């Protein structure tokens, strides 16, 4: 059964106001910018964003006023530093106040892993002595029932929807992801529903030819969106490189609320689709980011 939808339709149906949304889960690569921009265009409100190190997509969603709460390890601009919209929201409640439940990369991964195992929590010794457990009310400090030693209990976290950008998927949501994995699989397994955004839609046989590379169970997938270059300016291994300059420009232009609004008008609100975005980016820039040298994985035989 095909789950192919346009990005507009996928976001309309499966990312309602108030939803908790996990995205940007591979850390720097494969960030679903196209999905985030559509969320902004549809004016979604009161979202909870879940992620590890999150790059400027979180900053954009915050600046556009879509976000009520952040459950993440880091919010900013990975190659440039601070995220201006995040600072304005948390320091000045501009455009609105947001709640932050700070995690580390490990604890956000453990929270999703716990949900994926049906475990109410996973205990760790990370972050003991840090102020993070004192500021994040979801954590609990307790003694180990085995030896009485101090532990931090990280409770399971179940996103309403996880959005994953992948290299290829079939129409049913059986998807291959490779390269940097971050906490993508944990977030897919933990989620109630999953939106797959794929560079390529391929026949089912391409996916089932290599079931070990599948990221998770397609029965969780509610929508498959075919969106080439949908992760730009982040990288997609085997498809395009990271556009470092784009992050730099964003950082420079969004220092003021007015600058952010202009950037948003230019790159999100003023464009209806990812096709328009790519046309604006232009073929020269695409060419510069494209694959220069193919590096194919060694053959693997599943035969018998």
């Amino acid at each position, binding site marked *: 059964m095909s789950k192919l939808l346009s990005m507009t339709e996928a976001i309309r149906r499966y990312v309602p106001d108030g939803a908790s949304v996990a995205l940007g889960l*591979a*850390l*720097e*690569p494969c960030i679903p910018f196209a999905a985030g921009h559509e969320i902004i265009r549809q004016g979604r409100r009161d979202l909870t964003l879940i992620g*590890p*190190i999150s790059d400027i997509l979180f900053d954009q969603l915050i600046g556009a006023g879509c976000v009520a709460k952040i459950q*993440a*390890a*880091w*919010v*900013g601009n*990975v*190659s440039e*530093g*601070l*995220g201006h919209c*995040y*600072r304005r929201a*948390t*320091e000045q409640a501009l455009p609105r106040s947001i709640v932050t439940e*700070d*995690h*580390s*990369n*490990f*604890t956000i*991964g*453990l929270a999703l*892993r716990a949900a994926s195992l049906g475990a109410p929590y996973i205990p*760790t*010794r*990370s*972050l*003991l*002595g*840090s*102020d*993070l457990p004192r*500021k994040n009310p979801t954590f609990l400090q307790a003694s180990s029932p085995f030896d009485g*030693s*101090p*532990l931090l209990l990280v409770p399971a976290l179940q996103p309403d929807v996880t959005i994953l950008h992948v290299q290829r998927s079939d129409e049913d949501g059986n998807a291959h992801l*490779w*390269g*940097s*994995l*971050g*906490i*993508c*699989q*944990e977030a897919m397994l933990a989620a109630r529903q999953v939106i797959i955004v794929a560079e390529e839609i391929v026949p089912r046989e391409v996916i089932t030819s290599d079931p070990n590379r599948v990221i998770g169970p397609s029965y969780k997938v509610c929508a498959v969106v075919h969106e080439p270059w949908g992760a730009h300016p982040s*990288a997609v*291994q085997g498809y395009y*490189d*990271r556009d*470092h300059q784009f992050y730099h420009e964003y950082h420079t232009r969004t220092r003021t609320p007015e600058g952010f609004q202009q950037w948003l008008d230019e790159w999100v609100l003023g464009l209806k689709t990812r096709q328009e975005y790519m046309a604006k980016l232009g073929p020269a820039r695409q060419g510069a980011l494209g694959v220069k040298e193919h*590096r194919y994985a060694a053959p693997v035989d599943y035969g018998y």
Partner: protein
Amino acid sequence: MEYTPRELMVVCAARQIRDGERVFVGMRLPLLAFALAKRTHAPNCVGIFETGLIRDTPARELLYTMGDAPNICGALWATSTINVIGLMAAGEIELGFIGGAEIDRYGNLNTSLIGNWQQPRVRLPGSGGGADIASLAQRLAIIMPHERHRLRERVDFVTSPGYGYPDEQGPAGVAWRQRVGLPRGGPAVLITTLAVFTFDPTTGEALLQSYHPGSSIEQVQEQTGWPLRLAPDCAETVPPTPEELRVIRECDPHGVWTS
């Protein structure tokens, strides 16, 4: 030979890596330090990256982020973030690198917020994997710009635990880490634009180990928010060798991270 402060910091960082060690590599300067150590005195060191990578060779191109495509190619393993941080939680990573916006005399790092917790004056990006590395690595190396407002008597928020604080139950230092339940570790070194500090594990206090060529103990004190304690063998930082500089400049020919 001329060199920039950041080049010297990369050299100091690389010297922390012993041959054969497993190193949790952070962003920016540690990426270069790993490459430098690998090509000089520590050819058998292994780099672990929180995006889920293990490498025993430096990437063949300059990295802007650890998830960049050149860092995947040639990796020994590309897996989930919690798999690699899990190895560190299990005690298998000898050395970790992190940066910070603020640090205090006990090596506690703040990358979360400045000012009031509920209404911060400056909201910083947060922990990333920093708090995990500070909690779980066997030794911690910290790299920061040296400015008086960054090296404070006490930070506003402890994101990444160093040696804690003295309290009614005992001193700072290794004893504090044991008290709160941290399994091991603690800051081994703080490398700044002006100096290198080591730490006294029994008190948890930073000791000025060396001041960089062109700087002085007085200048370091001026830019440090606590009264300096000197290591017994405090001296000038050994400058980069031409070979070290050559390797750094091969890795970062345009000075993206080192200019």
